[in-house]
């Protein structure tokens, strides 16, 4: 009897089930009060910050503003996605009775985490429009390509935070794991800023860029001239995208068995190797700091 149950094939899943599930989860994400609150504060703070562009042009770069989508969509998104995943699990056996397995439900949750990408890309468009309309002079210390990579990293953080929330909810079973994940992410990003207070070196750049979020412009004191940290924003962006891939793959792992589990583990290993390679390439350039 038990052996029969164990070897029973998985429930048949309709071809469009994943899409339908993803749409349902995306609607839940859109209705989350924390997402809506974060979006509201993001809009308000961006309006205020873009108004100060001309005033702060000598000491700041628009790339500094990536903290806004990274925090209000990404870090808050950790909590949103964590709670969505846990409430789905808390509904007991009902999801197990649905014609969809745990793998697909997790995949649908991960697809729903693309919701904050829409306001994040709109935010990047807003920044470029504000720069063009205000004819803001930009420092040549950051190339246009590097600035685009820095701004895009904010959008990747906006998606990466929720994906990390799904990952934590799938692996950590204790209450309060969501807040612990937020504290760990914030602590990691803050720890990386320690390297900016040290003399420039490749080890310092590695510490700086290993975090899932980082700022590029800093100064040696409140009234000292600003500079741009060493490293490649383009390869750092690739590293962040691969971290998102790692989060998705690791979140899918608990619901898999047999050959599928082996495939997921292979993808996880490959992504980890490529991510380490991208981080290495991001650290490779001259660690010297360039005045803004």
């Amino acid at each position: 009897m038990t052996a029969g149950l164990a070897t029973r094939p998985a429930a048949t899943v309709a071809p469009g089930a994943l899409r339908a599930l993803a749409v349902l989860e995306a609607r839940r994400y859109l209705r989350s009060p924390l997402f809506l609150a974060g979006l509201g504060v993001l809009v308000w703070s961006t309006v205020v910050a873009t108004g100060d562009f001309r005033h702060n042009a000598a000491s700041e770069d628009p790339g500094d503003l990536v903290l806004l989508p990274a925090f209000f969509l990404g870090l808050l998104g950790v909590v949103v996605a964590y709670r969505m995943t846990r409430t789905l699990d808390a509904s007991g056996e009902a999801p197990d009775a649905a014609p969809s397995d745990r793998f697909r439900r997790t995949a649908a949750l991960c697809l729903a985490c693309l919701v904050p990408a829409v306001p994040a890309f709109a935010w990047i468009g807003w920044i470029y429009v504000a720069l063009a309309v205000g004819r803001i002079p930009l420092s040549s210390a950051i190339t246009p390509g590097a600035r685009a990579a820095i701004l895009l990293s904010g959008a990747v953080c906006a998606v990466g935070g929720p994906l990390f929330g799904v990952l934590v909810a799938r692996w950590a079973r204790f209450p309060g794991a969501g807040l612990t994940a937020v504290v760990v992410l914030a602590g990691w990003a803050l720890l990386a800023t320690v390297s900016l207070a040290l003399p420039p070196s490749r080890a310092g750049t590695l510490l700086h860029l290993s975090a899932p979020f980082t700022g590029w412009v800093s100064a040696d004191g409140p009234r000292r001239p600003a500079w741009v940290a060493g490293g490649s924003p383009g390869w750092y962006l690739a590293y962040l995208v691969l971290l998102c891939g790692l989060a998705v793959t690791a979140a899918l792992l608990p619901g898999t068995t047999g050959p599928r589990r082996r495939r997921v583990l292979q993808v996880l290993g490959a992504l980890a190797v490529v991510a380490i390679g991208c981080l290495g390439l991001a650290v490779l350039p001259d660690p010297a700091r360039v005045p803004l």
Partner: protein
Amino acid sequence: MILRAVAWPAVLGGTAAGAAILALCAVVPGDGPPLTYVRLALIALAGAAAFVLDEPAAAAVAAVPVSRPRRTARRLVAVALPLGVWVAGILGVAAGHAGTPVLGLLAEGACAPAVAVGAAAALRAAGRDEPGELVASSLGAVLLAVLLFDPPPHSVPLFPVGGGWSASTSLWGVLGTAAALVVVASSLEPRGRLR
């Protein structure tokens, strides 16, 4: 007996995270106290305190012959754990870093968990048996936003760095007192219930 019903994994998890951050703050050398990291520990400890009133078996507990105020009072004993870790941590940071504003930080550490417990008590009175997760994540997000973005008014900062400690302590005092009143008010036995 009631203390056994506390969501200890959540309380211990948050407290352990706060203790680890405070221990790092105490041993890492620097010109002054690493206040940003110290406040990160405070967020973890306040989050831990938010779980103290969680009651997964609320229906069963409501039937026991112990009044609601007494049950709440007994559960509040668990807040001593994050509070104790905060006091020990701040004294450790002060020992390693001269000029640590001990009194101001102790006020923050006493009042932030009080706000968490107050919010949890209000939600519990509104019918939510396990408000910890919601309070911990919402309060954590708000405190983290204040810590990272330092919003105005700067005359009354929630997390001061240079000056403004007395104004900040007053603000925390008001918040802590309001939270304590909310805990008391929402823990009273409803009229007509067995005393």
